Every structure is written in C-alpha cells, then in structure tokens.
C-alpha cells in the first residue's frame, strides 16, 4: 500500500465524528450549532459499513409506546415495611368478633419468639366514603377524601414472607436481587421527557434507606443510564448541583467569571480548538442545569395553600409532604418515574401497633392524598399514575402477646392491599378480596407480575415486547411469569 495518508476530504474524519457523538451531542443545542459550522465534516458518515451496533446504543430520548397510552409518568409512594391492610383498607369484622381467640388454621410467622396464634381484632373504626363507598379506616382521613379517585386493590400477593424478596418482586419483577427496577424498565422503554432533569428519580427518607438499599433503584443489567438518580433525603438534594458551602450566588458568579476568563485567555491562543469551545459551553450548560434542577426542587415557588395542602405547615407531615410536592414538580417538568420511600421498616409493626400505626399514618396520609388532589386539579392525574403501597400486609393474629399496648402484627405477603390512582387506572372502588381473616388473597388475586403487566399496558407497552437481550435471551420485567393485564384495574 502506498505510504500516503489521504487526509479527510476523501475519508470520513473519524475523530471529528467521534467528537460529535461523544461530545457535542451532550452539550446541548448551543455547541451543536457551533460545530455545525463545518457541515461537510459533520455529515460525512452517511452510510458506513458496520456491524449492527444494536444494543450498544442507548439514550433517554422520548420514545413512542407500542400502542396508545393513558399513562406517561408515574409516582410511586413506597410504604416500606408493609402497612397493616386489615387496620387500614381491608376491614375484617370477623377478626373483631373472634378477638383473642385461637386462629383456626395455619399461619406462617416470621418472628417465632413472639408468635401467638390468637386473633387480633382491629381497634380502629372503618367507614364507607365517597360515591364508591369504599371502606377506609379512621387512620386515613385524608385518603378518605380522595377515595373516588383511587382504586383500592385488596388482593395483592407476592407470596414471599421477607421484606427484601417481596420488595424485589414488586419493584423489579422477581424475588431475586440484581434485576432492573420498574423505573429502569419504564425509562428504558420510553425515555425521559426533559433534557434538563433525569428521567428516573428515587427519593429516600432522612431516616435511612429502605430495606435492600440502593438495589431499590438499580438498573440491574440494563445500561446504567437507566438507573434511578437519587435525590438526597436532605439538602443538598443533588450532589455537585448546589453551590459549594460558603459560595453565595454572587461569589459563585465571580468564580465562574474567573473560570471563564481563564478559559477565554487560554482559548485566545488556541482559537481553533473546538474541544475547548465545547467545554466552555459545557460550563454554561452546567450553570443552566444548576438553575433548572434547583428550580425544580425549590418549593418556595409554590403557594401557601399548596404548602398547607401537602402538610408543609405541620412538623409531622412536612418531610414527606416536601417529597410528594417535589415529586409533582419533577413530573410536571418531564421526569418519567419518581419513587418515594418511607424510612427503613417504617411500617413494619411487629409490636406497639396501637401506638405506631397511627403515627405512621399521620406522617403520610395528608401528603399522599394531597398529591392525588393536586395532580387532579392541575389536569395531570389523567396521565400520571400514583401508586401507594408496601411490600406486604400484616397477619390477622397477635405478635408479642404481652398486653394490648405491646401487640403487633407479623408479615403477610399472601394477601395485602395497595391503592393506585390516575394514568388510566379505574377510579373509585376496590378490586379483589382476601379471605374473611385477611390472610390470603382469594378473589381476583393480583400478583406482582399481574400488576406489572397492567402497568406497562397503561404506558402503552406490551410486557412481552419490552425486552433487553442478554445472554442470548430476551429478558423482560415479567421474566416469563404469567402476568395478565387485569381488566378490573382499568378505567
């Protein structure tokens, strides 16, 4: 071959294309426009011979679903620990009738040392609310007000009596660790709807991470692009987004001016280095992101009335209310999936149920209901799914039988309750039922995979088609489990 290198008028300029792909596309329209000043080189690679890159290219650009979708975004309020369905949303008069008598049947306990076979009636009163007449416990007065917007599913079932496994079932489709979470699948399938905020956001409680920690928002083996971005539980909500401590806005402006000045000076003797232009542009984009993400997280822009609605005026509800309100602001600005977690084992009431359950309810009831109400009044509820629920319910029998103020309830994943609202879910009423003791789902059982199949279909996706090729296999959220789209869940 001739020892003649042919420069790029006849050959595609790989490094420039590379530069565009790697660099400019991420700097936003500004830098792209700047680079488009060299049109010949930009479009040089019209049709190269190359193997199909297929799965090697991923992005968060919005994608059209398979079929028409009623839901475009979702907020999941994950009640980690497992709220007691028989005390909140699935009344069982028989328990009160047989209070303290021996449970007639088999029960699987989690904590043997405190186990008892005596039935525990619910000490809280239920009443029917709304046009749908759904039974709601006195512990959830605010939810009672929005009951006609929500669908209470009383027949949830995962069937594994541990927190971790049941969390994985509900959040990543299988009981095992290591699979992609629901939010990862949704953003993998649909992309995001904004280029200034992440597509998938997880929000943890200042009291600590939920059981299974960061695996809750893991992308599993999907590309890391689809991992949940965690907002820190306290300010600063996003690392590296906020100004350094001690840098006031004007001080940071001075700092950035200095960087820019140094960069311009540096550039002045290297004016043709597009790489340097692009990096200068990136500093500006970073500043914009600092503004837009900061703006999205700035609750002072909401009215007093909204603050009150979410309970920001009350010590008890403020923290969770803030997160619910941030969730709404994120979805409003194009975030696809937001999941809020209560603190580690917040609902895991093995003891002191009488005292703890009302406390837990107080913290979350008002903000959760406010979120639905707020989305509705902004016209966002129609295409935003709100999910409220934990990984399990509780047993009908007593745990820690040492006096009524000490008793609790042990785990129950065989039949429990959660509610959903918006995005095409049926509004008002209930679906399914547990047995007369509330132990097993017996009617219209909704397995985690049924729930997932239904959810994906609301987002316009076929659960069998949303797949990721791995180990030569097409992997999916349902992973071959027989999930059905449940008609009774749909509007």
């Amino acid at each position, binding site marked *: 071959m*001739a*020892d003649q290198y042919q420069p790029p008028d006849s050959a595609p300029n790989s490094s420039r294309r590379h530069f565009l792909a790697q660099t400019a596309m991420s700097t936003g329209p500004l830098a792209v426009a700047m680079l488009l000043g060299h049109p010949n080189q930009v479009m040089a690679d019209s049709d190269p011979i190359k193997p199909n890159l297929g799965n090697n290219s991923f992005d968060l650009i919005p994608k059209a679903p398979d079929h028409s979708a009623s839901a475009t975004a979702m907020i999941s309020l994950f009640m980690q620990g497992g709220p007691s369905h028989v005390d909140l949303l699935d009344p069982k008069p028989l328990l009160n009738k047989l209070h303290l008598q021996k449970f007639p049947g088999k029960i699987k306990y989690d904590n043997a040392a405190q186990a008892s076979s005596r039935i525990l009636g619910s000490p809280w009163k239920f009443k029917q609310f709304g046009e749908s007449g759904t039974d709601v416990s006195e512990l959830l007065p605010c939810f009672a007000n929005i009951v006609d917007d929500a669908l209470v599913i009383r027949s949830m079932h995962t069937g594994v009596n541990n927190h971790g496994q049941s969390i994985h079932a509900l959040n990543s489709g299988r009981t095992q660790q290591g699979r992609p979470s629901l939010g990862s699948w949704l953003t993998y399938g649909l992309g995001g709807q904004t280029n200034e905020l992440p597509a998938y956001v997880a929000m943890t409680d200042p009291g600590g991470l939920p059981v299974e920690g960061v695996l809750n928002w893991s992308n599993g083996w999907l590309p890391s692009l689809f991992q949940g971005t965690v907002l820190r539980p306290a300010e600063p909500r996003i690392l590296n987004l906020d100004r350094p401590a001690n840098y006031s806005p004007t001080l940071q402006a001075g700092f950035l001016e200095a960087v820019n000045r140094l960069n311009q000076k540096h550039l002045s003797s290297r004016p043709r280095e597009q790489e340097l232009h692009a990096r200068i542009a990136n500093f500006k984009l970073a500043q914009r992101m600092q503004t837009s993400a900061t703006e999205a997280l700035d609750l002072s822009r909401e009215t007093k009335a909204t603050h009150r609605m979410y309970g920001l005026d009350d010590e008890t509800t403020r923290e969770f209310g803030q997160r619910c309100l941030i969730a709404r602001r994120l979805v409003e600005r194009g975030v696809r999936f937001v999941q809020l977690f209560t603190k580690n084992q917040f609902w895991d009431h093995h003891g002191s149920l009488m005292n703890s359950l009302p406390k837990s309810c107080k913290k979350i009831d008002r903000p959760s209901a406010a979120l639905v109400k707020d989305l509705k009044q902004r016209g966002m509820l129609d295409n935003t799914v709100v999910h409220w629920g934990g990984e399990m319910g509780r047993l009908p029998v007593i745990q820690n039988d040492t006096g009524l103020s000490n008793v609790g309830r042990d785990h129950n994943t065989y039949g429990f309750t959660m509610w959903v609202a918006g995005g095409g879910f049926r509004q008002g009423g209930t679906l399914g039922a547990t047995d007369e003791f509330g132990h097993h789902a017996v009617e219209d059982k909704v397995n985690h995979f049924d729930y997932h199949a239904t959810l994906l279909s609301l987002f316009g996706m076929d659960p069998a088609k949303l797949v990721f090729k791995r180990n030569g296999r097409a992997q999916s959220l349902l992973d071959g489990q027989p999930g059905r789209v449940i008609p009774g869940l749909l509007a």
Partner: protein
Amino acid sequence: MSIRNPSQLVPAVINRCLVFLLAIAALNQPILMPKILRAGEGSFSDNTPQVPVFERDVRPILKAHCFHCHGEAGVTESQLDLRLAKWLIKGGESGQAIIPGNSGLSLLVQKVTDKEMPPDGKSISSEELSIIKKWIDLGAKTARPEPDSIDDSLITDEEKSFWSFQVVNTPELPAVQSVKSIENGLDRFILAQLESRNLTFSPPADRHVLIRRLYFDLIGLPPEPGEVEAFLNDPSANAYTSLIDRLLASPRYGERWGRHWLDVAGYADSEGFTDKDPEREFAFFYRDYVIDIFNQGIAYDQFVIEQLAGDELIQGPLLPLSAGKKRLLKATGFLRMAADGTASSGADRDLATNENIADTIQIVSTALTGLTVGCARCHNHRYDPIRQEDYYRLRAIFEPALDWKKWRTPKQRQISLYSDHDRKQRAEIELKAKAVDDHRIERQKAHIQRTLFEELLVAPDNKRDALQDAFQTSSNNRTAAQKALLEEYPNIQNISNGSLYLYAEQRNRRAKKIESKADTIEQAYLNEVASEHLKKIEPSRLSEVMAALEQTPAKRNAKQKELETEFPGVFVTPTTLSIYSAQGAKEITKYRQAAAECRKQNAKDELANLTNKAAEIRSSAPREYFVRALTEPSNHAPTTFLFKRGNHQSPAQEVPPGDLQILSDVSEINISSNDQSIPTTGRRMAYAKQLTTGKHPLLARVFVNRVWAHHFGIGLVDTPGDFGMLGSRPSHPKLLDWLATEFVESGWNIKGLHRMILTSRTFQQTSARTDSLDQIDPANRLLARMSLRRLESEVIRDSVLQVSGQLVNRLGGSPVPVKEDGVGQIVLGKQKLDGERKPQSGNNLGADAERRSVYIQVRRSRPLGILESFDIATNAPNCNMRIASNVAPQSLMLMNSEFMVGYSKKLASRIEQETSDRQLQFQLATRLCYGRTAQKETLEWLLGLADTQSRRFRESNPKWTEQKIQTETLANVCHALMSANEFIYVD
C-alpha cells in the same frame, strides 16, 4: 461481533454514579461504542479509478452480509452460494443472482434494493450497493480465474496481501528537503509526507510547554515549580534529554505507563459477571508486577513471554517459592483478568467458564496482536481472514490451563504465599479458635434447653408434658396431634439455633411471665395452707382471726400480731410456707430461680461474643496472601473442539493448538500439543516464543503503535486494538514498520522507544492549529503540529492531589477500597453494610485516600465517581482506547464537588505557608497549576477579582476573621485555576 462479553453483561448493578448529572448528560448522548467504523477505507488511498473486481471489491461486502446463509459452513439457502463470482452468475433456486453488464436486471440488486435481503432488518448500505452495481455493470470481472470448488478455509490473495499481515519491512529512510529541521529518522517519515503536501513542521515548543508535556506523558503528574525553573534555566545542551532520562527513572513513570498496560489487560480488582461482582483481593500483585516491568525497563518480549507463560518458565518444583518464582506467577495474572463468573454462585457455570475463556482470548488477541479474533468464535470472521477454526486453534493454546471441563474457580487457582513458619503458627492459633468454637456449640445447646424449659414453665400445666414430648420428638416422627399442638404454640415450636437471639431479646418479658406465674402458684399454696389451718381453729376465735387476716400485716395491732404467733399456719407467709408445704416452696423456688436465670442469661450476646472471640483469635494469624496466577496441571492436555455457532454444547471437530492460518507465510503457526520436555504442555510458551521471534507481523507493530498513541493522543493506526479490515489503516505505514524494526532491534527496549519518540522534532512541535492546516488535516494525522490533549481521569485526580501538596507516593500494595455511601455514590472507603444493606459511615482511610489513582480499587460495578466522570477505562473485556468525553456533569464536578473545593483549600494553605503577599500567592498558584508564570494582565485582573470575592465573603459571613476571608479568597481563586481548561489540557 456477535459475542457479548460478560463484563458488558454485568454492567452495573451498580454503576452508582449517582451524580444525577450523568443521567442528564446521557439524555442527548447516545452511548456509542468508542470504535468508529468506516467505509471502504481500504481503497481510498488509491486515487486511480479501477475496474472493480470480485475478490477485492465485492467479496468483502458479501462476506460481511451474505456468506453466513449463502455459502459458509455448508449453508446454501435457496441453493445459492455467493462465494464465487461464477456462482453468482449461475444463481440458485430463483435463477441467476446477477446478470453481468446489467445490474438493473440482477436479482441480487433487486432483493437488496427492496430490503428483502439481507433479512431481519439488516441492510447493505447504499455505498456498498453502488459498488456491487458498478461491478455488475462493468462485466462482473474477477481478478483471476476462479477455482471449481472452495472450502470454508479459503483465504483470498486480496486478504493475504492485507497490510497488517505482511512481514515487517525495514523501510529506507525517506529523503527530505529540510534536513535541518529533523532530529532523528522518525522525523524523516513525518516530514517527507508533509513536504509532499508543501507543509512543514510547526515551530518547536517553548521549554515550559515541553516540560509540562513530558511530565504528563511520562509520569502523569504536573511538574513542580522548582522543576520547571531548573529546566528553564538549564544551560546544558542535554537539558531536554536528561529531563527525559530523569522522568523515565522515576517510579512514577511505571505507575503512569503501567496503567496504560492495565487498560489493555482489562485489569480489575473484582470478578464481574454476576451482580455480586466479588472482590479480587490479590489482583494487585499483577498490577504491581506491571508497574515494576515498566520501572525496571524489562524488554517487551520478556514481558509478553512472562505474562503468557510465566508458570512454564519456572523450572523444577514450584515450592518453595523464591522471589523469582513469585514474580513469574504474578505475571500470569494477565491471563486471569477476564471476568470470572465462577467466583460467585448463581451463574451458569459452563457459560461462565466459556465466557471467561472467550474474554481471555479477546484480551490476548487485541492486546498483543491487535486483532478482533473474538469475532470468529461463532463463524468465520465477517471481515478479516480469520476462520472459526483459527479461533479454536488459539483457544487450544489456553485450554490446558483454562479447561472448562475441569474448571478451577478463582479460589482453587490461587497460590498461597505462606511460608512453612506461617503455616505452623496458624495451625497453633486454629487449635485455640477451635476450642472456643466447641465451647460455643455446647453453650448453644444449653441455651436451647433452658429456653425450652422457660417457655414450658409458662405453658398451660395440662399441656406442658405433651409440648415437651412434641418438641423433643424430631419433626419427622411427630404425630399429627403433636404437630397440631406445636402449631398452637409457635413460641415453643420455633426454638432453634437460628432463632435463639430473638428469645434472648425477649428474656425480660419471659422472666416477667415466669415470675407472675410463680406469684400465682405461691398465692395458691398460701391460700391452701391458710385455709387448712383455719379449719382447725375453734369457732369462737374465728372472727378475731379473720379480722386480723383481712388487715395487711404492717397495719396489724399488737393483739393481732400475737395471733400471728399463735396461729402461724393461718398466717402463713411466703417465708414460712416451706414449714407447711415443702413441695410448694420447692416449686415456687423452681420458678423464681428460672426467672432469675432467664434474666441473667443473655444467649445472644454470649454466643456472639464467643463467635467474635474465635474470629479474633483466628485474625491473629499472619495474613495469608495469594498470587492470582494461571497455572497448568502437569500432564494435562485436553482436546479442544470447534464449537458450532460458538455454542459449547455443540462441539464439532477437534482442533490442534496454533496461531492464525493467515500468518503462515510470515511466521511459524503450528504449536506442538504437548512438549514432552516439561511437565506442562508448553503450548503457551511455544505461542509466546512464536510471537516474540521478531517475525510476527503484529506484535511489535501493535505495541509501538500503542506507545505512539499515548505520546501523540492518536495512534499511527487510530484503532489500537484492531489492525484488521475494520480498523483504520496506518497514516504512516512505513514509519510504523521502521519503528517496529528499530524497537525489535533495540532488544524490545521500551524506554528506548520513548526516547526515540520524545527526542523527535515531531514530538517537540507546538500544538497550535492554523487555518490552512485545519483545512488540510483537521484531525492532525499528518502531524504538522502537536495535538492538544485532555488529561485522563487518573491524571486529573492525581494532579489535584499533587498541586495541593497532598499526593501520597507509595508503590504497590492492596488497593485503596471504594465503597458506596449513604446515597449510593461511589467514594473511597471501606464498605460496611448493616444487616439491611445500609452503608455505615465513618471509614477513615487516612493517607491512603491520597494515593495515586492507579492504586484505587477497580471494582467493575463501582467506579469511583470522580474517575468515572472523566472517562475511566471500561473493560469490555479490556480497554484498547480511552474516550475523552466532554459533558456538562464534568463541569459541575469541577464547580461544586467536595473534592475540588476541599483540595482548593489545601492548595491555598500550601501557598499561604510560602507567602502572604497576595500577588505572590497568585503567581505561585499559577506556577503550581500551569507550570508557568502568570501574565501581568491576568494577575491584575485576578487581584481585582479577589477584592470583590473577599468583599462577598465578608458580606455573607460577618463573623469570619479577616484571616479566614483572605484564606477563603485564595482558595476560591485556586479553585478557579484548577477548574479551568489549562489545568486539564496539555499542549
């Protein structure tokens, strides 16, 4: 390219770069493979129009898209075989595929145009199609007469003549006009090309540019101001070369260049493959070996031989391990870098082993020979003349050591560095620990029995014996009634080793229950005794006695007290009960003692303490290190089979070990399957020897190209891991060959190669672009100037540590651990998770946190945040070329991260120790960060800015002292200097 790598498959539980910004950045940024493939590059260097011929122009297209179904491996769908031009004309079931002279009527063209072929949405590009059309229209010519039949192993003359398979020629030094401007032979090749285009070298760069360039190139750190001064003022004619020598002699050089090789070797401190991504505790021995190779200036051929066959170089018995033997074993870590799924459970073992072998082959072939051999695992290589059989010939070289049928897990492969003395010491310690274990087991049994006893005490009296029987009966032998009974009493049913801690936690509650039962029993006995004695009292005294009884003892009057003495049986008390009911007193005592014991016995803590104690004793043994080595069992020569479609479950014919068939004209390719003179098969040794004879066309070319790429930012071949058809062609093929020849003749001397490149005029040019150069050669492949380069992530982090005076320089050792913090960010520190997977904080690494980045643990699933954001090496399964991305999150990291702000303050205090004069401070900061003095204009501007910033600090922090304000202001300016482009780019 159809094989996915396990290391890609396992991405990321966990790529927890939670810096949100990565996610944002990715929004607009498709993640692309760094390799860019380009069209028809083989022909662009030839400008004369040619009549297209089948072998050169059309066959490669059909090979890539069609042979798989139409010709290869005996598959000829629709009876159509496209491997020869005459068979295209002959056609298949649907008739002639082409009609020479008329592409419009040719079926092949129609099917491709209609996107009917190739099937499944794959397509032949319009550019390729137009080549095919042109070929047909111009008569469908072949370069030479075609044979009547061919087999799968056909390698065409065109393929054989591909540049990288040719023997390395020693080219003559080209003549140049401007002889004055060259420093060495290398420059002639560059200049000759420049001159042919009426170009010449850019001017030589200033010394302050050169020193910075050399420092980053050779040691990956910025020069200290004193070093800059010394170099600028060095009057010696050898100033530049002696600087090179100094840097090459620095231990920092091995760290910098060792890291380059670790990219190529796919170095990782974790096993990957599964989401667990277990740690590789001892991979670091290989890392340290590589660093040492570069520092010691070991010849490259020796380096290659040791990595491929270090174990086979060991003569005589392995033990005892001398320093030399250890070193050779460490070298074989090269072959143990691929992800290994057999380190954790849960992976399909056969799949994991075969993927590990495939990754190892890919690492070896791309690293050493720059060929994507892995593409031939399932079928003949689509583009390169690498047959599937070639792939399995290479596999056979490694099969005796990596035998998937007799696989050894990473644990089983490790070789202990324990001495006999260490072993003896540990045996003694183990005896002590075992004694503690035994004691713990005894105590556990005792606690189970005690707990059962306690729970039974408070069970209903009428069920106690039955419950005890049921519990003691082994669960298989229990009757239905026993099972039902235990169901009713889960608190008894579930007493076990595993639940003992729960019962221990409940011990006070249980003690209370026992005590209250004791009280009840006591009261019953007291009542019984009292009423028996009451019966014996004369009726006349009865009312008097009853009145006294009703009164609480403390309030009884003197008379009543007399009655107590008179009728002790009636006024029986817990203290006197034993006089009247020995049995009652005994029973009560039993309960009370049981309650006391129950409170006292904390089984949870006691057993945990014993467990800890045993662990503590064991931990006093000398730490046992293991080499992560590849070794081969003696006399083990398994047969290698070709796997149909790459599937290990479909073995086909046997394949002997050997190198690629395409190299047979220029290099020995056959390898004996068992060298009888040594205990191992000697296959790897033979392969290593063949690679390093100096005749192998790829080994030296690939290596000198890598070295070149690190010095210039781009290789002569800009796809350092692919010297095949899809790779790029060398910009200066003769130069590449000349360098390769010189390199081999120098005795594969790596430092010598550096010297040759660094002392060239080419390397010493300025990097300034000009309008005219950008018109001709924007990518700077002709090297009429130096290229501006962004520093790699490790260099950026290390530079921050260095200028702020914090860098800890210590060679080698266990990696500095990374961990996940409370929000899932990857930071430095030892990971400690509690039972619910919450990270625990507070792991102080001390000075280790400020070691060079090459020593930071490479956990595949946990790239350190700051390193990842500036493009860490991605192992897939190795990294042949780093990308240098330019995204906004990098700016945010510079602007706002604790890392940058923290080290800005350290830089400020370093400067304050030198001078308190503001102007001198800024001058020093500039010299530290940029290796040059500050320009007057910038300095003045910075001083003005500093005043403003001071005022702002003062305004928002009224309580700060003036000293504090001045320090913070200086830190702020330092922060700006370290965030600016000049800090992270080198000219």
